[in-house]
């Protein structure tokens, strides 16, 4: 690069820097306002993201719950344990005397011993 080009560059930079230093007060003030407007925009954006985060977490939890209830977990309800549950409930609700269970306690103990053996 020639000496003239280097001079042009350095002088241009010098003149530009001087002009930046001499920007008038009202313009500086408007630039400051513009900067605050930009920072407010950044805060608004962060707030929007932050505000939606709990909502997203709740939605994800709800989706997970629905998936567990109606998805692969649905097979649990057809398992013997879940199938026996209504029968047990019925036994408790028919109002029959449960003392009968105590009368044949020895028989049940014997039956349990035999079935496990």
């Amino acid at each position: 690069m020639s000496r003239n080009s280097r001079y042009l560059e350095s002088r241009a930079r010098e003149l530009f820097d001087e002009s930046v230093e001499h920007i008038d007060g009202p313009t500086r003030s408007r630039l400051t306002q513009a900067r605050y407007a930009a920072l407010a925009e950044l805060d608004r954006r962060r707030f929007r993201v932050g505000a939606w985060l709990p909502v997203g977490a709740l939605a994800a939890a709800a989706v997970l719950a629905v998936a567990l209830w109606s998805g692969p977990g649905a097979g649990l309800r057809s398992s013997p344990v879940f199938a026996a549950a209504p029968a047990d409930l019925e036994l408790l609700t028919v109002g029959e005397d449960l003392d009968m269970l105590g009368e044949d306690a020895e028989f049940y103990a014997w039956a349990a011993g035999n079935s496990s053996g």
Partner: protein
Amino acid sequence: MASVSLGIALPAIGAFGRETDGETSGLEQSKALERFLAGVERRAFRIARIAVRNDDDALDIVQDAMIHLARSYGARPTEEWKPLFYRILNNGIRDFMRRRRVRSRIMAWWPGGGSGAAENFDPIEAAPDPGGGPRELLESAEALQVLEAGLAALPGRQREAFMLRVLEGLDVADTAIAMGCSEGSVKTHYFRAVQALKGRLGER
């Protein structure tokens, strides 16, 4: 506009009102952005002012660029802000100039609406003439006016390359990002800008 992906840092949720790392980094991010904008706003204004030759328009363009940077790239690493900011600013200037050209063409068709004076305006001719060659011109009391007029007369891409490289001090790689072109193109535009400026200042 480059398709720079939008990275948004998700703030952590504070437990029991405790200040979390996310909130701290959010505050630091705000402070970093404020420092950055405070450092570039006046230079950006001068660059826009040289291009559009109007204070209010230049201020609007700078404000839009600041808001765009905060909204779209505020979460990006701070070292990326400068080229991104100048890219947004240059796009803003280019859009403004395009709109102004269209407006002046429409006005030229309007009866009595325009004489084409704005299009034919030559800032070099309009600048005061202290006489002498480029060196004398740049040392004169009107040196800044002469320089601004010379820059305003350059084709847009050449002006961008010169301003970013010389006035803003960006390196070739960052200038390429800011201009949205290859480093080779930056070098070409820059070389032509210097030659054109020297030629125009010397022609007077």
